[in-house]
């Protein structure tokens, strides 16, 4: 069920500048549905800033087209309403709300204003499904604050699912997770990635190698290379600038 | 032309008063994100210090000169006590600090009322500050001129302290990035306390100086505090140059408006103008690019 214009996110010539410092310098990317994209690069490469630009957090010039709309013209919440969701480096869930309430609140975008004034009755189907998908069914009634770090990340991803985000931009989702949790997260991403565009910013090269369909390497605000894990490994430019001295996992 | 000159000077001197109060606020607000509503009462303490010193010394001129440093100490010590007893526990709750310090202010006002009595006290002005000097055909009252100079002097002193000393570097580093400052070995606790001493001490000086213009009563500080905060907000938090511009522009704007309309209308218009201004620049005149501000 491919909706025209909604099966890819196209980025052309995005540029972000802070007081003369160019953080993102003309990035072009095409992110297709059904693939798990990884965005890697050294600190300061501009990965998070790029995601910030795509989600309306920083001003950027260029074009980021999704569903025939230019994202760069819109405020954050309107971008979300187009079906683009993101997570942050530090998991931000509503710690005083329960897991269930966290998921439920994420579904709010699709509710009409009047229903907001009513109390929640029963659990919406989508929330149920999501609880199962992210494996938190048993924690449904516990405050999100008591979840483990990994579980909070899953909850965030779950919130994106309830939101029905077609594009998910995940900023280091497995940082601080155990090996077991990483594996589960990776599988989760592949499961939900079938019908979605998933973009993951990541430093952990094992994780990248195991789960990436496509990898984009950024450096100094530019795209250095783009391709499968194997192609990236083979790219001499990447090896010279980046892989050679920092990452042993891929080289 | 005459009106223009007189209103510019009147406005500048009113701005100087605001500046003197707001500089201290900018320091504490900027560095610690703390909204100290008791700042006005530190000012009041400075004014009463001038009154007491004058009684002790018995000479208006000498009294003023003694009262300025003593007022600085009194204000500063009150600030340190407040910081150590209350504010340090609340750095993560800036909004609540506002309410707590408002409460402290109420108590201090009532203490002043109980100690000094409700009637306003007059602190006699030194003879060398009575009368006026002609500037561009305008009789600039000596007292106001003194205030203007004092306020500029205080500002320069603060700037020198921030720019030239090790302490100043620590303060600026803390404003810039508190966590980073801590990791490079700056004791932010100590820096906070010193900044609070400095900011509150300036309020004390402002209080001493204000006795030249008006009476000394328990509510003298409360009458300035809202405007002083607006100056800080308009200037951009933690931005001394913004504070300076804001204080003088608000002072001059008010002076002209008041000349054209009335005192009440001028105040209302200035307040509304500030709200509109913040629409255009929610960050104030100079935005700070730092994440440690609340």
């Amino acid at each position, binding site marked *: 069920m491919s909706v025209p214009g909604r099966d890819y996110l196209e980025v052309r010539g995005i540029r972000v500048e*802070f007081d003369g410092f160019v953080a993102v310098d003309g990035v072009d990317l095409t992110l297709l549905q059904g693939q798990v994209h990884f965005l890697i690069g050294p*600190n*300061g490469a501009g990965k*998070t*800033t790029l995601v*910030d630009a795509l*989600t309306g*957090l920083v001003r950027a010039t260029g074009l980021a087209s999704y569903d025939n709309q230019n994202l760069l013209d819109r405020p954050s*919440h309107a971008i*979300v*309403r187009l079906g683009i*969701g993101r997570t*942050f*480096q530090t998991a*931000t*869930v*509503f*710690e*005083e*709300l329960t897991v269930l*309430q966290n998921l*439920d*609140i994420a579904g*709010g975008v699709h509710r009409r204003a009047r229903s*907001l*004034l*009513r*109390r929640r009755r029963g659990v919406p189907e989508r929330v149920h499904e999501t609880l199962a998908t992210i494996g938190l069914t048993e924690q449904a009634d516990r*405050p999100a604050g008591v979840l483990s770090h990994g579980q909070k990340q899953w909850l965030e991803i779950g919130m994106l699912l309830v*939101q029905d985000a077609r594009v998910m931009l995940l900023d280091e989702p497995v940082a601080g997770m155990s090996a077991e949790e990483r594996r589960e997260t990776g599988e989760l991403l592949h499961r939900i990635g079938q019908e979605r565009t998933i973009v993951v910013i990541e430093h952990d090269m094992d994780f990248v190698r195991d789960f990436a369909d496509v990898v984009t390497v950024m450096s100094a605000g530019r795209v250095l290379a783009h391709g499968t894990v194997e192609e990236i490994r083979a790219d001499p430019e990447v090896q010279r600038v980046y892989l050679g001295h920092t990452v042993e996992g891929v080289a | 032309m005459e009106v223009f000159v007189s209103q510019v000077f009147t406005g500048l001197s009113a701005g100087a008063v605001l500046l003197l109060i707001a500089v201290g606020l900018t320091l504490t607000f900027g560095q610690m*994100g703390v*909204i100290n509503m008791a700042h006005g009462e530190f000012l009041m303490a400075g004014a009463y210090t001038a009154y007491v010193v004058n009684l002790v010394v018995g000479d208006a001129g000498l009294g003023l000169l003694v009262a300025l440093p003593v007022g600085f100490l009194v204000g500063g010590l009150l600030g340190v006590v407040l910081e150590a007893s209350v504010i340090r526990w609340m750095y*993560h709750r*800036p*909004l*609540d600090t*506002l*309410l*707590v310090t*408002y*409460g402290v202010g*109420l*108590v201090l*006002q009532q203490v002043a*009322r109980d100690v000094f009595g409700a009637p306003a006290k007059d602190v006699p002005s030194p003879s060398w500050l009575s009368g006026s000097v002609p500037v561009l055909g305008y009789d600039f009252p000596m007292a106001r001129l003194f205030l203007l100079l004092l306020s500029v002097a205080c500002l320069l002193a603060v700037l020198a302290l921030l720019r030239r000393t090790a302490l100043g570097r620590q303060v600026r580093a803390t404003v810039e*990035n508190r966590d980073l400052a801590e990791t490079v070995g700056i004791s932010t606790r100590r820096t906070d306390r010193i900044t609070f001493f400095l900011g509150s001490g300036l309020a004390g000086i402002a209080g001493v100086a204000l006795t030249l213009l008006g009476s000394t009563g328990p509510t003298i500080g409360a009458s300035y505090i*809202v405007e002083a*905060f607006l100056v800080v*907000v308009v200037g951009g938090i933690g931005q001394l140059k913004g504070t300076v511009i804001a204080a003088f522009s608000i002072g001059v704007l008010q002076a002209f408006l008041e000349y054209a309309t009335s005192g*009440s*209308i001028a105040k209302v218009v200035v*307040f509304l103008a500030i*709200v509109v201004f913040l629409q255009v620049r929610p*960050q104030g005149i100079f*935005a*700070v*690019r730092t*994440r440690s*501000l*609340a």
Partner: protein
Amino acid sequence: MSRRTTLLTALGWLALAAALLGLAPALLSDFRLGLLAKYCCYAIAAVGIGLAWGRGGMLVLGQGLYFGLGGYAMAMHLKLTDAGPGQVPDFMVLYAGGEMPVWWEPFRSPVVTLLAILLLPVLVATVLGAAIFKRRVKGAYFAILSQALTAAFAILLIGQVKTTGGFNGLNNFQSFFGYSLYDPVNKRMLYFLAAGVLLASVALMAQLHRSRFGELLVATRDAEERVRFLGHDPANVKLVAYVLAAVLASVGGALFVPVVGIISPEDVGVGASIALVAGVALGGRASLFGPALGALLVGYAETSLSESFPGSWSYFQGGLFVVVVLLLPGGLAQALSALASVRHRVGGPPGGRRRRERPASDRTRPGPTTPQEVTA
């Protein structure tokens, strides 16, 4: 919200209703009942502050503005009905040569007046709130702005002696919608009205607290940026809470006028506005009954303290802010629930546990977070 909480809430509400509508009228003299009616008016405004501040995280230091809008609208109507059709209020005859400004004219109609009491605050709060929240002015900035606005409003009122009664305010009302205000029976009626409205507004809050909107508001308070990435504009969420708080303050002010018999700039200024916050802080800003009970308690304390020790009120109010906000940010509600060791859930006391919201990347480069970071 669990069944048990719902039951407790309902029982608490019934107890409050029984106390206000049954116990109080039976036990109190007319004079004391009149005072209680006044506290009820404050409490109605306090309920709104509980929503905006406790639940929404907006420290509204200027609710006097809305209290005054409702109060003055009501007062103008009462003055006009006392004057009689086509006539001009007494103070205008004395101080303005009998000239009445045009904008007084609509308040002759009781319907227009009642609508104004409800809609004026909606209008003003929407315009101000939209301007403020859309520009992401929040935290301390917002508190200071709201305070400056109410200060400006009070100064404006004082400066317009001929149209607002100036510093004296509006007073000397004879009747309230046709009922004599000199009759003690009618004064009791007013008490029931104020108490009834208070109960209704608490009930409205109960519904809001457990509604999805209530959850969204708490979420916005605790992590505004995160809410933005749920596809909501936090400005709108806050705006709704702010406007509701404004309406409640306005209604409180409107009832205050016949109950107390006067409205003056003193009742709407900076001091009066912060005094409203005092009760909310004491009772528990985020709790359901806290703001109302706190306001009633503070009102009572003010009266009884000032009757026995003049001047001690300042110490009490000041001390209350220091002790409660510093040590008991959740107010008496927090103390009670700590006693009952009930674990709090949604919207438990936020103080002390609120984290600084920093969702975006955290690096040493000039970050992407400047516009919304300034306030916490």
